[in-house]
């Protein structure tokens, strides 16, 4: 299954090596994985990260599907 990931700001450090900032990165995922599982796999702490799938905020139990666009962003507010 292929998904497309973007890692913003300080989360870029979790992107595969050699990938440019904010680049959409195609990732091959073996089998079924939830957002929470994907975060664990990448080593990202769930508490401080907003995960948007196709622009929507999702819970950790959301199961990723073929072609999903997943964005990882810091969880902040504007001002």
């Amino acid at each position, binding site marked *: 299954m292929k998904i497309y990931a*973007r890692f*913003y*700001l*300080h989360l870029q450090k979790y992107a595969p090596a050699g990938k440019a*900032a*904010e680049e959409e990165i195609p990732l091959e995922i073996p089998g079924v994985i939830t957002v929470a599982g994907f975060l664990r796999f990448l080593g990202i*702490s769930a*508490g*401080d990260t*907003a995960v*948007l799938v196709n*622009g*929507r*905020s*999702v*819970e950790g139990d959301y199961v990723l599907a073929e072609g999903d666009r997943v*964005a990882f*962003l*810091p*969880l*902040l*507010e*504007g*001002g």
Partner: protein
Amino acid sequence: MRTIYRLNLTTGEATKEEAPPRYVKLGGRALTAAVLLDEVDPAAHPLGPKNKIVIAPGLLGGTTVPNSGRLSVGGKSPLTGGIKESNAGGTAADRLARLGIKALIIEGQAPGKTYTARVTQEGVEFIPAPQLAGKGNYETAGLLRNRYGPRASLITVGPAGERGYAAAGIAVTDLEGRPSRMCGRGGLGAVLGKKGLKALVIEAPGAPLRSPARKDHFQETLQKYREIILANPATASYADYGTAAMVDVMNEIGGLPTRNFSRGRFAGAGRINAARLRENILSRGGAGKPTHPCMANCLVKCSNVYPDETGKELVSPLEYETIGLLGANLGIADLDAIAALNHRCNDLGIDTIETGGALGVAMEAGLAPFGDADAAFFLLDEIAGGTVLGRVLGQGAMVTGRVFGVTRVAAVKGQGLPAYDPRALKGVGVTYATSPQGADHTAGQTVRAKVDHRRPEGQADVSWNAQVNFAVFDALGLCMFVIPSLVAHPEVLADLVAYFHGWDFTAEDLRELGRQVIRTEREFNAQAGFTRAHNRLPEFFREEILPDTQTVFDVPEEELDSLEVR
């Protein structure tokens, strides 16, 4: 801290009084709201002598509590016709609180005159200042610093306020003396400007920090408070990227206002986001700072100093709302241009959110093409020059839409929307619709809430919770960027208040304080003639599908109305 000074521009007198008992447990927005309801006729003309400006530090202002230096400014808004509070960081709240001042109440009017008011340990005096009339905020601040010294804290209005523009804000100086911490929203700069009070100069040399009533308990709680904030990863992110991090967040969500709220994603977002902002600041060096405190004793440091290509300061700070409204909303994908527009707005003393909204409407009307930064500067020149077009724009997005026959005008209760499209972020949409403050993200932000922002379900509850929380922080004088850390620890906040003041004060008292703020503001608005019909978003948000999310704003009206009885 019981002193209230009454500054009457009609009589030219400043008098000192003791705060009545009912005000003792109120501060910041809670106090400005109470004074306005008690003293201002809700039918008064906002720009007339019967309106008042109330300036108040929060309940924790002037203390060792980090991030407690927000200054609340309240009045009847010329933009909404209702009650308004707009707050800013900077140096003034801390100084006022150290001087033992609970509030300044500015009343009356001196038509055609220009005064400054000097606030010191000895009292308050008016000083005629005709030489400052019509001057921009930066020049005004420079002249006042020359006269009163670099440590004087200043509260100023620019020419936009003096002219009575409903988009005019009030500037507060930061730690380096820049008049750039804006109480931007609601047009309160016009109220102060029309009173004839160009500036307040606050001098508190040697005034000590306020002492807690129960020192040991207070210190212990303060330590917890600091640890909670520093342990939150959001705190470090604010220091690294500032609020500009929201450009990517909102663009991903599909709610970044673009080309007058016609789209929620901006093709140029990657050129105006936090990564580009930080890269420009770091690579250009010079005066640039990627992180910067707006007030003393700040743990967050979300501010910045943005330099031009030669390293010379262009503006400080450059923040998300401004990037959203003067950038994406105008189709401008150039941080340098946005920074320069921001500086110009600060100098005029005009709110960047309202101005970006008005310019977006003007561009939709065909007055200038989207994406044309030169045209945006031209429109700001019109505002500065006081031409008929400039005066229209200076009244904000709503008036601009009426004059030019534009139906897509993003405003509630006459106040332009901040940089979150309510079709993509529906909890904030509920806040925009129902807050007594008009469309205001600082009245109840929900972007961090664990909900699907595109669904209508549950948004009324999420918004109400945020509205109460934000009112609490506004009453305490705390920065909203410690909310993500402290919201889960209301008992720590309540203990801080209890131990500092020596009161019995629980987390429930804290929440009740927040509810009380909103009830007081609603009561003022009800007396001013506001009804349910004013608690609605503009029609186009329900009718026009936002292409980037394929959603409309569809929180049922009954749910909006359900907030009335809470």
